[in-house]
């Protein structure tokens, strides 16, 4: 029982990170219907920006932890958002009205570019960071097994839920959110009634990248390492999460992220660590056999 609760906590923390990345996939898919393959690498760039910002802050003598974390979060979100914007501008906007596989190939190209750019600029070695947020709480204890909730996990879960609430509010209530929903339903019609679709799509990428940056920073705090390759694995998992939840659906992305995080954690805890990814992918395939549009996805209605 204690072991189970512990794995539940670990799974929710990991799932939150996947969920935040998955939102970027699902938003872009909802609005322009493409798989943004470079999104995982945007997450990786976010982790690197957070790492470097933190080191720079230490070098110039900002050591108060809450202030430093806040600054790192701000810089990482801002710079990674700039990456998201640039990627859209260079690789996707010229292909807006092109056929469907072209942006996919261009996205794979972008993913290769970002990976190798970071590898060249920062080296291929794994970058370790000593744990910044230490300590935690022991929830309950019995049979020599203590259920721990660490402060990093609290931060991750709290930040994710705060962002989710802010983000849902933005989609539901603000002008930008309304524009996004309009573009999602029918981009052409939205532009006819005065929605600046190019700007809306750009902002979608910017917001997705900023959320990925938060995920990158949390990954760095949670695992304490970053390298140029983390983006691919996290990206594939998050994309799996988005599809599992029903691509295009925001609550679905979060739910899918949590599910993938839980499946992975429980599979590693009770069966084998080696096959945890196989388990996540196998669950995806099995779910899609029975629910071809994911858990919360709406079935696509085809007009003939």
């Amino acid at each position, binding site marked *: 029982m204690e072991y189970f609760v512990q794995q539940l906590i670990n799974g929710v923390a990991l799932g939150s990170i996947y969920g935040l990345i998955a939102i970027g996939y699902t938003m872009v898919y909802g609005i322009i219907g493409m798989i943004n393959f470079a999104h995982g690498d945007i997450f990786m760039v976010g982790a690197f920006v957070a790492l470097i910002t933190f080191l720079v802050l230490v070098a110039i003598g900002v050591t108060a932890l809450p202030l430093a974390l806040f600054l790192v979060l701000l810089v990482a979100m801002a710079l990674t958002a700039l990456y998201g914007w640039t990627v859209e501008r260079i690789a996707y906007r010229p292909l807006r009205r092109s056929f469907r596989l*072209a942006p996919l190939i261009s996205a794979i190209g972008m993913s290769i570019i970002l990976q190798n*750019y970071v590898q060249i600029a920062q080296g291929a070695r794994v970058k370790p960071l000593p744990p910044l947020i230490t300590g935690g709480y022991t929830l309950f204890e019995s049979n020599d097994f203590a259920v721990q909730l660490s402060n990093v996990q609290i931060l991750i879960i709290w930040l994710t839920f705060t962002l989710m609430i802010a983000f849902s509010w933005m989609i539901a209530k603000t002008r930008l959110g309304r524009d996004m929903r309009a573009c999602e339903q029918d981009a052409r019609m939205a532009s006819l009634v005065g929605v600046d679709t190019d700007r809306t799509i750009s902002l979608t990428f910017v917001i997705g990248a900023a959320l990925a940056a938060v995920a990158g920073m949390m990954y760095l705090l949670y695992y304490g390492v970053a390298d140029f390759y983390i983006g691919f694995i996290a990206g594939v998992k998050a994309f799996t999460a988005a599809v599992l939840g029903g691509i295009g659906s925001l609550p679905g992305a979060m739910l899918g992220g949590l599910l993938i995080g839980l499946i992975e954690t429980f599979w590693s805890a009770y069966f084998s660590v080696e096959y945890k990814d196989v388990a996540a992918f196998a669950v995806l395939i099995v779910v899609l056999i029975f629910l*071809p549009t994911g858990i919360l996805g709406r079935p696509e209605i085809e007009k003939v």
Partner: protein
Amino acid sequence: MTEQSAPAAAVPSRFPAALKSAALSALVAFGLFSLIVGARTDQGPTGALIVFPRLDDLAWLAGVVFAGSFLRTLLFGDAPLQVSRHFPSGVKRIGARLSRFAAPALLGFALIAPLLFYSNRYYLDLSILVLTYVMLGWGLNIVVGLAGLLDLGYVAFYAVGAYSYALLAQNFGLSFWIGLPLAGILAAFWGVLLGFPVLRLRGDYLAIVTLAFGEIIRLVLINWQSFTGGPNGIASIPRPSFFGLPFTDDEGGFAHTFGLEFSPIHRIVFLFYVILALALLTNWVTIRLRRLPIGRAWEALREDEIACRSLGINTTNTKLTAFAIGAMFGGFAGAFFATRQGFISPESFVFMESALILAIVVLGGMGSQLGVAVAALVMIGAFELLREFAQYRMLVFGFAMVLIMVWRPRGLIGTRVPSIFLRKEKELPSSMVAEGRR
């Protein structure tokens, strides 16, 4: 409109705009590169990470972006670049005329290539590699280009073929010529296995399931150590023989039987012709299948699945055969890869390979056999040419993928030959072909 038709006259009037856009681009570039390039992290003497400023590189990059953006706006204005517009029409016409002879010329060149490069083993190895990718591209083209099923895990079948042959040869001592068809059949079987769950899926759901399938196969190959050798792979896979005659320097070897002087290059030349024959077989089967009902059903499926079903085409069988036949050629290529390398490991079957093969198919122009061959030649050849810049070649490769897609979203070969036609055969622009999204 007038600005675009007379770029030279408009240059001075664009000067302020160019300056402004260049300054903006440089600012964005400065922001992008500020931390990742401008500050290098490394492990310091104590083992903890420290940062070094690298401002000169940052300034260089921002400067290059400034100059590039300035020149681009000055010369071409704000309009999206369209390379083809800057070619005079005469060049295009000659190009169109030449392209008719491209296929026979390439085939002829391929047939005599081993004689030309007989003394140059590097070129022979490179041409074998290119032909392997041509074959993989043609195999994937059946699934993506003809049936319109987006497959992001094609490398799984390549892996199944390679491991099937390697394990059959090692455990049961089967020769290459028996292992090859068996590897193809096993890969086709796996293609059907993948096909079943994805029958009802569309578009990107299909893409992620195929990607997941590819990853599952790779992860199982890594982790099932007792069967596949795990990350260490399988070594000393038997080399192919010339229909029973081994390429060795002794009695009964290939060279002795034909009275030739022994040379290790014989085996390479033989491998070259084997992969050439396999690739041509793939091509020939594809061309023939397009004329059969099944091939037409594939293309109909690509264009409109609902119309297909209402006309009584069994979409289940159509999709499964597309997966099976595409996978079979992937399996053949895998078996060839195993026997050529003599060593295989899961490292060779990562997602990047799938992406590369898909890129070859899309860059070549989906559905165009010649385009796929040209794209494989260009991509793999250019990749090898960049070997000197080892560090930067993947970066250049990524940029090439993005740029080709931005300039020619329909691929290098922009026309398609329809499978059936009324009275007169003529080429169609590729924009009239459905996009292969299902």
